[in-house]
């Protein structure tokens, strides 16, 4: 079953002469284990696409189906859907700048999304250490983000995104703040996660060097998604 299905999605800001069509007639379908890249220059609508996909920004029209549940239909959120719960339980986010919570240690940053779904005690701690192990930063578990290197921070951020075994991971320019070597390592990790965890991964980037090995690559231009598979 598809994790995410987007059909005829549009987002229009303003009206009349000030109207801006940020997204127009977007169709996208992502299945478990898919590794999808969205490429596009600045102003192409990448961030708007990400905001709509992460259910933060309400589209103008279209339909979004997530994990078999219709979330947005025609021109409004579907009734009875707890969007924050979906983000909490079924989505993971990786940001351009790691966006770790600065007053929490690496361990606590990974524990935070687990605590939001009620996981606690030894089971939660074990899960955290398992993820930090997986990211090869177990020895940095009790360090505050300020004491970690850029690459370590991004790995902690990926561990946090994976904490609740999300069905969909949305990554916004995850390599932008890293050098090429570390950037490639992060991309390798994302590929590994998609295959091993069967999580769908959508990466928004403008760096074509980083998308090697992706299942599908789409290009966004002036709010339109080029559906031609570039791979």
């Amino acid at each position, binding site marked *: 079953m598809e994790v995410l299905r987007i059909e005829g999605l549009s987002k229009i800001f303003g009206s009349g002469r000030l109207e801006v069509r940020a997204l127009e007639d977007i169709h996208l379908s992502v299945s478990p284990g898919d590794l999808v890249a969205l490429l596009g220059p600045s102003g192409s609508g990448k*961030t708007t696409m990400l905001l709509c996909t992460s259910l933060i*920004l309400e589209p103008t029209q279209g339909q979004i189906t997530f994990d078999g549940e219709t979330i947005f239909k025609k021109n409004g959120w579907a009734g009875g859907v707890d969007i*924050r719960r979906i*983000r909490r339980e079924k989505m993971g986010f990786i940001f351009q700048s790691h*966006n770790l919570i*600065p*007053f929490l240690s690496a361990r606590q940053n990974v524990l935070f999304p687990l605590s939001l779904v009620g996981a606690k005690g030894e089971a939660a701690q074990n899960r955290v250490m398992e993820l930090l192990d997986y990211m090869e930063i177990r020895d940095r578990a009790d360090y505050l983000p300020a004491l970690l290197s850029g690459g370590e921070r991004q790995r902690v951020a990926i561990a946090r995104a994976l904490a609740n075994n999300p069905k969909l991971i949305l990554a916004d320019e995850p390599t932008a703040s890293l050098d090429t070597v570390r950037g490639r390592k992060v991309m390798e990790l994302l590929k590994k996660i998609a295959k091993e965890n069967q999580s769908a991964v959508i990466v928004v980037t403008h760096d074509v060097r980083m998308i090697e090995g992706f299942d599908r690559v789409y290009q966004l231009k002036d709010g339109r998604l080029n559906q031609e598979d570039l791979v």
Partner: protein
Amino acid sequence: MDLAIYDLKLHKGRFIATIIGVGLLFTIVLAMNGLYRGNIYEGLAVINATNPDLWVVERFRGGPFNEQSTMPEYYHYSVKAVPGVEQASPFIYYTVERQTGDQSRHFSIIGYDIFGGLGGPQKIHAGRGIQQAHYEMVAHPKLGMRLGDKVPLGLHTYTVVGLTKEAVDTNGDPLVYLSLPDAQEVLYLKDNEELRNQRTRLTRSLALQGSLTSPAAERLAPALQPDTHIINAILVRLKPGANRAEVARHIEDWLYFSSYTTGEETQLMLKGRLAGMTKQLLLFRTLLMIISVVIVSLVIYTFTMEKIRSIAVMKLIGAPNLVIVRLVMEQSMLLTVSAFLFGLILIHNTYHLFPKTILLASGDDLITFIVAVLGGILASILGLWQALKTQPAMALGGQ
């Protein structure tokens, strides 16, 4: 997961500095509560310690503490003759600034009939009461005097025969008890040179009248010197079963004095001299509480703004508003409660160092704590409003 604590651990220097700053403000608020209580206690101490059935003072005067009241000493015989009066004692009260030892001291003197009259110290803490007609005194230990000390007042030296702790004057200054004639002498005694000048002026005025020869004027002058047998009030004890209101009415109608019960005298003080101070202290306390709330509010707002991106991230990964509200509110409460406890501990360990009496009451502490907590909640509103309106999109670089 207690986010507020983790955040404060990271900023503990600023958190502690704020606690000390706001805590000192709370110390002042609590000290003012105590000062208010102390002010009332001191203002009423001499009234309560004296506690006659009636205070008789000059007509239409609110004396002897609120307003000057003067009357000839012998009037107490007239009051004694009123039906229902068992005892009527002359009473004098005034404030002086005198040199005792190396220091200039501000204190009040009470003169009373030491031979069984009313108005003397109720309880002697050390030594004994005044037994001789002259040159003995009972003093408050605040004056730094010890039993047997010799204290010069005017022309004479007085021996401290007793110490009493129970009363201070209405300004909180210590009291000294003297026999009535001694108290009158200390109050009215003039310098010899001034007495001679006064007598010369009077003799000259009398001689100028033309009806007296100069030697006759000289002979008459001493008899016309101002009377020093003046008192401020007459203290009355009623006979058992006597009707207080009737006795008071009789004194007012027939002797042309004003009379007050101790309750009325207390009210005169509370509504008169103490009312202004009470309002003043209330205003100060209100201002300080507002300042505390503003400071906590600004600190919490700053704390919140510093982690606004983290709040956006929390929202993006699905944290409910309750988690955000708890983070901001808990910090505000921790700051307020810690500052209050700091202030409470500080004032309970330093109140005795204040020159004025500070009476700390647990009820006042509790009310201040409740006001502080409400202030803390109020202080967090600005930070909460900012946190709740933060868009999760901020974490992705949008909005």
